[in-house]
């Protein structure tokens, strides 16, 4: 049986054509509006309270809708957006260095390796400037110059200085801005907040998304919740790799459940691997910690030239025996090559047996030259907090011995397919932030995730959702509706099943093994043989999971193992789809590198003839091969070219 | 807490200055004691000023204790289940001994009034000659009185060290620099007051004053 079948192509019918600069304006004008008096009668469910979900819930509340917000954390403020370090891009051109909306648009399309939609990306660049204004008005303490104006820096290899930042905690500060706006709406009675609640199923009535099934994680109670529209802002699925820089609770369940109910899942194989993470210290490792990419501005990356030197202390390896491989292979960009290239180069040298540290999975990031050149105080001023963090985790002093770094899964560009209005293929189901696939193509630029999450939540969704809601109001639905009863029974059945297996392996042991398979075969470098093998391994492991998993306790009350079990079960299904997607895309692009498709000197080779499309996957039923629906990508403004950093 | 505390600190300063008159001599000390009773005259009749001051002080003490008690009760209510592993003090010991220190000080103040104001517990109890009362009090044979007095004064010192810092914070001191200054002030005032108060009994004990 083949792994997938191909269905009808899909098209984004909402994006206006014509001049790209006015598309967003024209769409806003053509969208129907909801009468203010009617907004009060409309309910919108928002799942997730990160930058996208938090800002959307707050803004919809301000507009007058009745909002029901859900998050699995104990407070909306703890969503994982909080961990973003670097910054947020905006085309303000405060530096007068040639930046513009068009340049941000151009850089983002190119950075995404020509696998994103031009219309969406241009809109993102347009609203980027409003985000900064909004955040400043909320009291987000961005870094400032002595004159009192906002400071910016250049980030992730761009040539303009357009990244606004708040020390290394930009995500935290932006999220607190959105969180505080959300709390204000909660106090005003416009938003009903449900923390420690997890969405476990989508309710569809007459073809429209009308509600969700949630489990109260504290009491274990399962309820059905209804609305006129459902917004998913549940983040990315990097935790399918077990080890990633995501928070432990990050999961795919909300989007995966929607996918099973008919929402297309687009480009699941596009995964971003970040080159500067602290390597694993052993098998006990539960997550990986990112260190700001800015370290590569002054640190030099190297490994020993000979594998037999790897066990020696770094100080005992003379200069001549060191291989500064990034500087050697990419003389023009050196240590500052883009994330995907730096990551793959690190993997290659480790595969050659020249990696350092536990398991040979690490490369040195050496500040000895920087300390010699700038002096220790200058290095301390620039990177002091990062060095401290490194020392806290590894117990090594990076002023004395070089840091060890290794790539780790960081962000997923794929997600539920949405049109220009951010609506999925299920009417009434909107998807925003990392949970959708829309703006980053095959690779996300640094400091663009925060921009996209807030653009969707503050400015895009609140303008587009009205066009859908204006077609209401919809028939009233309650817990007694057959669709609600069925969805609820599905959830209860799954929970009962997980609790009844009473096997001999823990949830984490399965998750860890799944992560191993994914990292090995669907990680930085993918091959046909590897992916085919991975699919088989995943299927076997999934069968084993449903035979042997052990979840103690019951469904009543707080049961963290049960929560994890449900999430891991969904990761199994997603993992298979990721591998199928990676297998079918026989080209390399952005974060997806197929060993079969590379230039003679080992760089990613796109195949625009065959693959200039979005791969949107339709769920065909349990055990059935998924259906591939292609959305063709057309480039009218930015013409595809091969990236080169030599 | 802060407002009543500040009143009490001001009283302690004046009281100490008065005490130090003992080094000038018996006549001066006794004269000072009598003068206190005539303070404010002829505007105020004899001892009126003193009674006004006593009223204000009583009000301050009661207010201080009332505030402390309500804070303590709130604290008790705010943590109904105690930690099994006793918390290690990381802030300052002075801050953590305010409540017991306050009780010790209260007991001392009661004793002190019975001793040197009303004279009930004083071996001499000659109201006209307080100098003699003091000297009798701290005579070497009554070392336990001196010991108790010393312990009480040291508690006051601890109490002041945190109390002055805390009062200034409550009244809105808000900078790092100011915080360092205030810690120094609190420590300085505590040390000076302790030294001032302890100088009298030790002077009597060593015979410097007799």
């Amino acid at each position: 049986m083949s792994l997938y079948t191909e269905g009808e192509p899909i098209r984004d019918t909402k994006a206006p054509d014509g001049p790209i600069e006015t598309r967003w304006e024209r769409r806003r004008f053509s969208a129907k509006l909801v009468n203010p008096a009617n907004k009060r009668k409309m309910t919108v469910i928002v799942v997730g309270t990160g930058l996208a979900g938090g800002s959307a819930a707050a803004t919809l509340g301000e507009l007058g809708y009745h909002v029901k917000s859900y998050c699995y954390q104990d407070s909306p403020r703890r969503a994982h957006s909080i961990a973003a370090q670097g910054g947020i891009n905006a085309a303000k051109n405060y530096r007068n260095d040639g930046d513009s909306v068009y340049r941000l648009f151009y850089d983002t399309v190119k950075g995404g390796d020509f696998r994103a939609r031009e219309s969406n990306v241009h809109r993102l660049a347009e609203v980027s400037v409003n985000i900064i204004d909004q955040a400043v008005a909320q009291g987000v303490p961005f870094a400032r110059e002595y004159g009192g104006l906002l400071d910016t820096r250049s980030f992730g290899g761009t040539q303009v200085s357009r990244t606004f930042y708040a020390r290394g905690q930009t995500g935290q500060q932006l999220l607190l801005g959105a969180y505080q706006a959300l709390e204000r709406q909660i106090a005003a009675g416009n938003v009903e907040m449900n923390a420690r609640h997890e969405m476990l199923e989508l309710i569809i009535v007459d073809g429209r998304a009308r509600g969700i099934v949630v489990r109260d994680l504290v009491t274990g109670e399962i309820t059905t919740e209804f609305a006129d529209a459902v917004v998913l802002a549940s983040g990315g699925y990097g935790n399918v790799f077990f080890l990633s820089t995501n928070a432990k609770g990050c999961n795919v369940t909300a989007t995966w459940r929607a996918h099973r109910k008919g929402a297309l899942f687009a480009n699941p194989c596009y995964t971003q691997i970040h080159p500067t993470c602290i390597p694993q210290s052993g098998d006990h490792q539960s997550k990986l910690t990112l260190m700001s990419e800015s370290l590569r501005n002054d640190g030099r990356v190297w490994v020993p030239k000979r594998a037999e030197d790897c066990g020696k202390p770094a100080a005992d390896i003379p200069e001549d025996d060191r291989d500064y491989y990034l500087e050697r292979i990419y003389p023009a960009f050196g240590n500052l090559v883009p994330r995907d290239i730096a990551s793959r180069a690190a993997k290659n040298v480790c595969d050659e047996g020249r990696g350092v540290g536990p398991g040979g999975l690490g490369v040195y990031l050496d500040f000895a030259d920087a300390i010699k050149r700038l002096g220790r105080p200058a290095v301390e001023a620039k990177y002091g907090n990062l060095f401290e963090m490194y020392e806290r985790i590894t117990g090594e002093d990076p002023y004395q011995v070089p840091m060890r770094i290794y790539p780790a899964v960081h962000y997923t560009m794929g997600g539920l397919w949405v049109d220009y209005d951010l609506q999925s293929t299920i009417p009434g189901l909107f998807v925003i932030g990392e949970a959708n696939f829309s703006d980053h193509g095959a690779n996300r630029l640094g400091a663009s995730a925060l921009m996209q999450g807030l653009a969707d939540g503050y400015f895009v969704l609140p303008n587009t959702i009205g066009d859908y809601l204006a077609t209401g109001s919809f028939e009233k639905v309650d817990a007694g509706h057959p669709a609600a009863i069925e969805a609820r029974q599905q959830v209860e059945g799954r929970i009962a099943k997980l609790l009844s297996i009473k096997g001999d392996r823990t949830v984490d042991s399965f998750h860890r093994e799944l992560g191993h398979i994914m990292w090995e075969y669907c990680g930085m470098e993918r091959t046909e043989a590897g992916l085919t093998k991975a699919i088989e391994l995943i299927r076997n492991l999934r069968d084993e999971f449903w035979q042997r998993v052990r979840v103690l306790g019951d469904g009543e009350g707080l049961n963290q193992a049960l929560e994890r079990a449900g999430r891991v079960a969904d990761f199994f299904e997603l993992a298979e789809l990721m591998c199928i997607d990676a297998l079918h895309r026989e080209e390399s692009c952005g974060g997806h590198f197929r060993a079969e498709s590379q230039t003679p000197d080992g760089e990613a080779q796109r195949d625009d003839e065959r693959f200039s499309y979005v791969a949107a996957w339709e769920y065909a039923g349990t055990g059935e091969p998924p259906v591939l629906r292609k959305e063709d990508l057309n480039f009218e403004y930015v013409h595809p070219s091969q990236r080169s950093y030599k | 807490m802060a407002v009543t505390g500040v009143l009490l600190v001001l009283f302690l300063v004046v009281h100490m200055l008065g005490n130090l008159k003992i080094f000038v001599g018996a006549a001066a000390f006794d004269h000072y004691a009598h003068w206190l009773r005539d303070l404010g005259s002829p505007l105020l009749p004899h001892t009126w000023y003193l009674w006004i001051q006593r009223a204000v002080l009583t009000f301050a003490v009661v207010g201080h204790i009332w505030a402390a008690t309500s804070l303590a009760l709130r604290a008790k209510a705010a943590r109904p289940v105690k930690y099994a592993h006793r918390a290690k003090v990381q802030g300052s010991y002075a801050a953590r001994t305010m409540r017991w220190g306050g009780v010790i000080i209260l007991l001392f103040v009661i004793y002190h009034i019975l001793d040197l104001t009303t004279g009930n517990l004083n071996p001499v109890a000659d109201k006209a000659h307080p100098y003699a009362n003091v000297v009798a009090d701290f005579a070497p044979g009554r070392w336990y009185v001196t010991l108790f007095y010393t312990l009480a004064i040291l508690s006051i010192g601890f109490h002041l060290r945190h109390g002055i810092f805390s009062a200034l914070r409550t009244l809105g001191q808000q900078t790092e620099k100011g915080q360092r200054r205030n810690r120094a002030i609190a420590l300085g005032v505590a040390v000076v007051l302790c030294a001032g108060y302890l100088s009298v009994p030790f002077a009597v004990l060593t015979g410097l004053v007799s």
Partner: protein
Amino acid sequence: MNLTLRVWRQKGPQDKGRMVSYQVTDVSPDMSFLEMLDMLNERLTLEGEEPVAFDHDCREGICGACSMVINGTAHGPQKLTTTCQLHMRTFSDGDTIDIEPWRAKAFPVIKDLVVNRGAFDKIIQAGGFISAPTGSAPEAHSTPVPKADADEAFDAATCIACGACVAACPNGSGMLFTAAKITHLGLLPQGQPERDSRVVNMLAAHDEAGFGGCTNAGECTAVCPKGIPLTTIGRLNRDFIKASGKR
């Protein structure tokens, strides 16, 4: 390393709860504290005993979820460090480690080491924001902010709302948390219009939630993983006195 853990086990909000001893063996010094508990939980699951429930999420010291009192100290012995960033190399072979939840009336225990910190959200709801509906914002550069103010506001804004300040406070007070937000917003020009009402309403919500009063004991700032300074409480007090004077 081999360790003895004494962990607070409590089945639910109504259960009385007690300390239970566990031996853990072969602990690597490179493990984080939570990874050591993960290991214990894997073993407990296989032995048929329910794993220890504890809050955690980002495991990189920023989300504020993790919350354990370790040997009597909130977040354990290492300064400026959350529980998730604490590593086992801080301990020695043979140690006994007591692990308890945050203890406060305003933070009732849900299960084992998990508490409900919703009271903090309530304090923010009372006024911990600047009212700036989406779309209403003026151009970001229209109001310059002196760098010193912006930096000090930032220092206060780094609070992660973990609740260690409450856990450590001898009075069970949430004043450092409240003061950090008052300081952050009060130092910025955008925060001025609501400055008076903010402090009055947030303090009322703080007291309402059942937190104790502040006696400036300073335990909070000593355990705060983000080093929020005690001076923020002075700012809160000053704002409160000013606001009270105007009413």
